[in-house]
């Protein structure tokens, strides 16, 4: 599933809470544009970036979903979500966009070991 030379980018911050989500996704996109395989792991509030019903709130609240949709164009197709995190956020799996992949919590440490490079946002 994961290749050693891939970059693991961890997204832990929600849309609209800080710019960490956006700047984490930017790092992922730039790495992919440079030809590096990129895997994304969503933890905690970061999972909210994958909610499919994010809409237009107030004018000027810039949406995150268009950036999430761009990931696929850059061949970033591993959007990993630990099941436990989803449960503790009380989010149902079908609220997430389609290409999110659930993983067991026990897989998290292994994921960290298998990636030579990691960026944590």
């Amino acid at each position: 599933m994961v290749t050693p030379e891939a970059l693991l980018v961890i997204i832990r911050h929600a849309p609209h809470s800080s710019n960490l989500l956006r700047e984490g996704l930017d790092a992922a996109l730039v790495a992919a544009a440079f030809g590096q395989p990129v895997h994304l792991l969503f933890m905690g509030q970061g999972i909210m970036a994958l909610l499919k019903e994010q809409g237009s709130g107030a004018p000027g609240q810039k949406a995150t979903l268009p950036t999430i949709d761009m990931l696929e164009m850059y061949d970033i197709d591993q959007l990993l979500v630990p099941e436990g995190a989803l449960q503790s956020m009380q989010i149902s799996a079908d609220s997430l966009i389609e290409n999110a992949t659930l993983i067991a919590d026990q897989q998290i440490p292994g994921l960290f070991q298998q990636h030579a490079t990691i960026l944590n946002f």
Partner: protein
Amino acid sequence: MILHILTKAPDSSAATQMQQAVGDQDAVLLIEAAVTAALDVSWDAWQQYPSRIFLLSEDLISRGLANIAEDNELPTLEMEGFVALTEQYEKTVTWY
């Protein structure tokens, strides 16, 4: 009579501290990251302050939580309603 404005998620220390300060006559408004409370109907604040706790509608919509708030029958307010609350309550305290 105080309006408490929470801007952080219900599991934050800001939320814990707010809950220690809310009095019997006070109201609570959840904005920004605090609207994630819509996901957690078991959050004790929902039981503690019935009919005086509200979610800011546009922050729910932008975070994809509007339908969930509706399904859970949680009270929401527009920005106009936020202003109306500050008219009604003499003091406001923001928890962040």
